[in-house]
């Protein structure tokens, strides 16, 4: 059984692409056959985060326009045999694809025998968003604990529901436990109270994300990174296992550990 999951947020810069890369890689680490689609046509990033930029020959537009076969455009990951990326075109824009074409693309990927198809949705609520959600079975909404991001997530959840993608799951990204404890940042409860959706996971604000993204190796592969652990937990939950959330107390423990590591470094 294959499943198409769209990663969306409304607001830009909250970590959709990072989340897509980490979840895709995490699922592949669990032995699943995964295809990642970069739906952010014209502003492609997923290939960069995955470190696969230099391997692109064909892209999504080439596939929908019939310039190449689907298999030719799928780029195999450096590390994981069962992980593939379908990159976006950089020279075109969102209007180059229609929702119907995206639906067809998702269907053909399902036929290829992929277990999971992860779609990295562009920011905004326009054509690019409509394309990205067209073929999706499930949606994951990424937000950060900021009022603007939560507001946009709320709008996006409403739009997903209007498009029959009910019960989207929430990932609260870039949470800073120290600030939450001081009362300077929204807590997970604040966010879930507003959005009224199930939480799939929380990801702490972690320097390792920046480092791994720049290196083109998703943090999920890093055993020592706290954010990596958070993503591994989320992957477990996608696979249907019950893993407790990184709660505040636990987080404090992790941050304590993290602090120690940095102190050692100094």
């Amino acid at each position, binding site marked *: 059984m294959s499943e198409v999951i769209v990663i969306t947020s409304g607001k830009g810069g909250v970590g959709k692409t990072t989340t897509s890369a980490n979840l895709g890689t995490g699922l592949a680490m669990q032995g699943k056959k995964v295809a990642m689609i970069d739906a952010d046509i014209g502003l492609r990033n997923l290939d960069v985060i995955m470190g696969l930029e230099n391997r692109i020959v064909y892209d999504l537009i080439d596939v929908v326009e019939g310039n190449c076969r689907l298999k030719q455009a799928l780029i195999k990951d450096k590390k994981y045999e069962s992980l593939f990326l379908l990159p976006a075109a950089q020279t075109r824009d969102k209007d180059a694809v229609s929702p119907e074409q995206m639906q067809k693309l998702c269907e053909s990927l399902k036929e290829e025998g992929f277990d999971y198809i992860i779609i990295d949705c562009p920011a905004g609520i326009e054509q690019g968003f409509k394309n990205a959600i067209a073929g999706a079975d499930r949606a994951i909404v990424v937000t950060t604990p900021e009022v603007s991001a939560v*507001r946009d997530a*709320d*709008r996006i*959840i*409403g739009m997903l*529901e209007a498009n029959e993608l009910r019960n989207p799951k929430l990932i609260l990204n870039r949470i800073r436990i120290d600030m939450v404890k001081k009362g300077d940042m929204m807590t997970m409860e604040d966010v879930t109270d*507003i959005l*009224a959706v199930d939480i799939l996971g929380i990801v702490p604000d972690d320097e390792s994300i920046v480092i791994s993204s720049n290196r083109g190796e998703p943090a999920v592969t890093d055993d020592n990174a706290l954010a990596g652990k958070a993503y591994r937990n989320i992957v477990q939950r996608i696979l249907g296992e019950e893993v407790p959330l990184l709660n505040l107390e636990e987080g404090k423990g992790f941050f304590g550990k993290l602090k120690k590591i940095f102190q050692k470094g100094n």
Partner: protein
Amino acid sequence: MNENIVQFKGTKNGIIVMLDENSPYEELKKALDKKSESAKDFFKDARTDITFSGFSLTAAQEVELAQIINKNTGMDISSALSGGTPSISSPRFASSARKDDGALNQLLSEALVTAKKNLTTFHRGAVRSGQSIRFPGSIVVIGDVNPGGELIAEGNIIVLGILKGLAHAGCTGSHDCFVAALDMRPTQLRIAELIACFPDEKAENTPLYAYINENQIFVEPLL
């Protein structure tokens, strides 16, 4: 001539003129003339609908018969029906009928507006940013109204949840409307043409009730 081929029967919906099916039209006409003449004191200046039954009349015949009744009795016929199908074509009736049609239509549309005003739409679940509920009556939301969400009602608004978006009650100008919420911290609250903003600091979670008094929006604890 047998006058009994035409009979009048009064009902609460007007007068039914029963015409013998087996008699020729000319005879029916004469009989009706006589009968209505003799009943003119009874029908004098009455204002009513008449319905022809029995003999199947053409539209022209119907008008002719109605005119006879009108001439003989002075009865103001507001509509003439035959077998349930309204068919009025004579100018005399048309004018009065059109006037009545207008009045009827106005009455109907007024009733419809009142009915809609008395109607309530229910929404279950959150009203999210970008979503808007507009209704000619009242709105009840069972769930939260998030910032960026809108409720616009010609009647009242009740939110069984937290009202954080915009609520506009009595949007057509009715000052009698109210907004009530279990927890009220709207971005903006409007009743009729009045607009109120809420203080930014988080109020305690008591159910509140907003209404207009002397051209000002007042907010009071609901309980």
